[in-house]
């Protein structure tokens, strides 16, 4: 996730995503996931382009699809998806996204104290990005690695059994 995004060609990313997944209804979310993964977030242009490409591709719907409107997917519908799912971002994020698990197991296993440490260390509140766009801080629901809680995800790297002392070292690895 979130390799430097600017120089990547949004058009190429969207085209590849639509080509990978097709235009049927069950491809909408996979397409958005791929765009998000490659580009870091899903700008409005990507939604418009994806919609256009999908319309040009004849949809091969699972037999008996609910209704024909599904073929005519709207930008609004795609935006609705992008804004609903937590793994899809509609706003530009920093170069690195720090996600901290806020769920009860991590909370009980030391996460309560750690969460304060992370906010101080980055000088960010949840949802914020720092001015030079290095980090975006977010909270996330359980990541399913509670055995080593508390856990934090930086981009795709997972850190478990985390203590506040380790934070400075870890963040220094991300430019």
């Amino acid at each position, binding site marked *: 996730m979130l390799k430097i995004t600017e120089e990547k060609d949004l058009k190429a990313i969207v085209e590849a995503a639509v080509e990978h997944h097709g235009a049927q209804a*069950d491809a909408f*979310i996979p397409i958005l996931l791929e765009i998000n993964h490659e580009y870091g977030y899903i700008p409005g242009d990507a939604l418009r382009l994806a919609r256009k490409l999908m319309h040009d591709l004849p949809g091969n719907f699972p037999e008996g699809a609910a209704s024909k409107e599904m073929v005519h*997917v709207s930008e609004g519908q795609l935006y609705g998806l992008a804004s609903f*799912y*937590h793994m899809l971002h509609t706003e530009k994020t920093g170069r690195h996204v720090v996600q901290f698990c806020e769920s*009860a*197991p991590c909370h*009980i*296993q030391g996460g309560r104290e750690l969460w304060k440490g992370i906010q101080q260390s980055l000088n960010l509140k949840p949802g914020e990005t720092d001015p030079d766009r290095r980090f975006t801080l977010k909270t996330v629901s359980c990541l399913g690695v509670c055995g080593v809680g508390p856990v934090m995800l930086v981009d795709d790297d997972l850190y478990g059994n985390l203590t506040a002392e380790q934070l400075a070292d870890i963040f220094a690895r991300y430019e």
Partner: protein
Amino acid sequence: MKFTRSMVLVSTDPESMRRGAAGVYTRFQQELAAFGLSAEVSLSQFTDGGREDALPLVIVYPEASAYGPITTEDVKRIVEEHLYKGRVVEELLAPVKELSGRIGWLKARKGSMPMEKRVVLRRAGRIDPENIEDYIAEDGYHALAKALEGTRMEVIEELEESGLQGRGGAGFPTGRKWRFVSMTKNPKKYVVCNADESEPGTFKDRVVLEGDPHSILEAMTIAAFAVGADEGYIYVRGEYQLAQRRLEKAILQAHEYGLLGKDILGSGLNFDIHVHSGAGAYVCGEETALLESIEGKRGEPRARPPYPTTHGLWGKPTLVNNVETLANVAPILLNGSEWYRGLGTPSSPGTKTYTILGNVNFRGLIEVPMGITLREVINIYGQGLQPGSTFKLAQTGGSSGSIIPASLQDTPMDFESFRKAGVSLGSGALLICDERTCVVDLAMTLMKFFRFESCGKCTPCRVGTDRALTILTKISRGQAQLSDLDTLELLATELEIASNCGLGQTASVPIRDTLKYFRAEVEAHIRLGVCPSGVCDMAAEVETV
């Protein structure tokens, strides 16, 4: 916590006391001292055994031998034979009895330690999950072959007789669900595996998906045969990238071996499976929201009925099963329903996976027969609480669970006993909390989760979780009034009866359980402005959460 070799529990509820439990307890102290065992055997009291016929009751761990009724004269024999020489005193054991009130009594329990029994996890970690031949060598796809030789009804009947209940949290009889879908006449049906495991503290499904992906493919293919489906989806949560890759690889291999696709094993069965990634929405674990999500929509739960068994994916009859449920299917068909009924309790056969988390010495995943008690989980598998701490409560994970106070730790964990005790097993996450945990802080954390994950479709849930969180936050800052607790109770009722799906309905549970079991602690925050556990920061401003 001091490590002890054995643990002796004496029931001291009023009825036991009337029958002389106090004398039994004192005699145990004396005899343990006389045999020099005081340092290695702990002695404690418990109540609510639910066995009026066998009081006073004495339970000895780790063997989980239940003796009763016990008189002072019996104590020396138990100490000498059982604790000193290590032999269970068969004649003094309480008669085996079915579930009665709080404690389930099993044949398997009679003097034997509840051992870990792996059915669902039997291959995870032992085979190469990316190699289908490893799977086949370990009985893989044998159940499918066996099923295809028989009839659809035989499969469904075997499953019904096994008593398998859905392991996603609700505990619906699996065989019955399969029958419902098989009875529908629609030529197009789907089988969907719910692998959107997102209950906080739960990762059992991930271990199965990553360690034994073919077991899910096999079970889904058997299901397709039994209900008459030809297409399947595995909805894996977006965060489980490794599981997705392994499933995709497994599907390719199964195709190569003729175990998926057209005319499977020459039986005429056609079935194909797609892996569908979630995108980060807890509510998609609710089955109708999951179906919406596959259809490329926002994961908002549908109104039910109609149920997915008749109107599911794209309006077609759809069988939706949890990963752990499916992982039980092949072993049941191979070994028979009778074998399966031999595990667990009569009302909840089989095994259950639990994730043990929190302030214990060992954290991780276990699989044990249904009906093990929380005390056993903590002391045997969790290896006790961390040094210097005592058990306060357990939270059974995510939305479908409850807060269980220490007084209920001897309730056997199966669907029926938990229902009687008014608690929920949930997905099997056991978050063990010691006295350093503040119940208000915990409830606040849980409510934050619900508010964050509420999909916003229905008002009771969208607004209710937000208001409840505001009030809980006020309590934790010492700025609430007692009347706020009435509002909380009201909110809990509204959440429970008016929410559209399980998320909102069970968001009421942490509120109810907190007020039911820990009201004094909550009131201390309000009346005295102190957090008895010293967790809540009373000086902090109420931030806009």
